[in-house]
């Protein structure tokens, strides 16, 4: 369910909360059946009002300095390729990349899924505040439409930041048509058409 329009059109008292989820897939990023690795990372650029990780829909979103930019919506001729940047000062993202590259060399989290969730402060869980949520009633279904993107490539990895380029899930580079080659044993007329 989306956020009612009148809540978004108010002049004040709107606080947009941006949450990120990083989903890894087997067998690219971890061995199939390996339950010891984390397969879903949750991030938010900040903490809640009691100085702990923000909680939405009973899920805890780890506080890490991160920034995503370049999300576009609308009728552009080119598809948006947003960039997401995480702080890497203690090597936290290098560690994730190291684990992934041990499974698939040179993978660098390619094909992993980044989901951006946006909601308002009044729909956050009560656990984020001293007492109940002072802005409104918690409701995990009230959010703007999720943006789901795939990681296309790693742009920067140094001792300060780790940055990735994201692509639309239908904007895959290595996908070719036809996906199957049709030969005469599957379709007898193949190769006999003559176009004039």
């Amino acid at each position, binding site marked *: 369910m989306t956020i009612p329009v009148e809540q978004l059109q108010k*002049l*004040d008292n*709107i*606080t*947009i*909360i*941006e949450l990120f989820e990083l989903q890894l897939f087997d067998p690219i990023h971890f061995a199939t059946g390996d339950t010891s690795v984390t397969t879903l990372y949750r991030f*938010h*650029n*900040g*903490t*809640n*009002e009691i*100085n*702990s*990780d*923000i909680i939405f829909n009973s899920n805890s979103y780890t*506080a890490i300095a991160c920034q995503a930019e370049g999300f576009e919506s609308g009728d552009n001729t080119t598809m948006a390729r947003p960039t997401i940047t995480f702080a890497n000062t203690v090597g936290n993202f290098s560690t994730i990349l190291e684990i992934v590259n041990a499974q698939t060399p040179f993978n660098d989290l390619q094909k992993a899924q980044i989901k951006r969730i946006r909601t308002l*402060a009044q729909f956050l869980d009560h656990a*984020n505040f001293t007492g109940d949520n002072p802005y409104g009633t918690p409701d995990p279904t009230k959010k703007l439409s999720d943006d789901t993107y795939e990681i296309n490539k790693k742009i920067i990895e140094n001792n300060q930041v780790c940055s990735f380029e994201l692509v639309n899930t239908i904007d895959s580079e290595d996908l070719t048509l036809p996906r199957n080659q049709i030969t005469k044993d599957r379709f007898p007329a193949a190769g006999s058409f003559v176009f004039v």
Partner: protein
Amino acid sequence: MATFNDTTLGTTTGATTPAYSSVETASPKNITVQFGDGYKSRNAFGLNQNPKSYSLTFNVSLADGDKILDFLDARAKDSASFTFTPPHTSTAKQFICENYPRTNTYLNRVTIQATFEEVFQP
């Protein structure tokens, strides 16, 4: 998490109370859009967008000044935040201090001008 007060630092009573004329600065981060007349749309982006900053002056003896500097040096070393109750408030908040020049004003007297910036972290 360490607390910036007389008990933790071991200073004489009142040494960690800043002198008068301390400055409290607030600069809330809001996204503001205004076209034309008085209609202005203001939104915040995320919680905790109003970190306070305090410019504090401590006029203390040399021994107390050393203890204050030792405390701030230790925080610079472990890059941890500390709790401090700002002047004329009752609730303690979390701060970091990245700038604390010391001036030798007189025999056995020093002045420390520290800038405490509020942080929101576990």
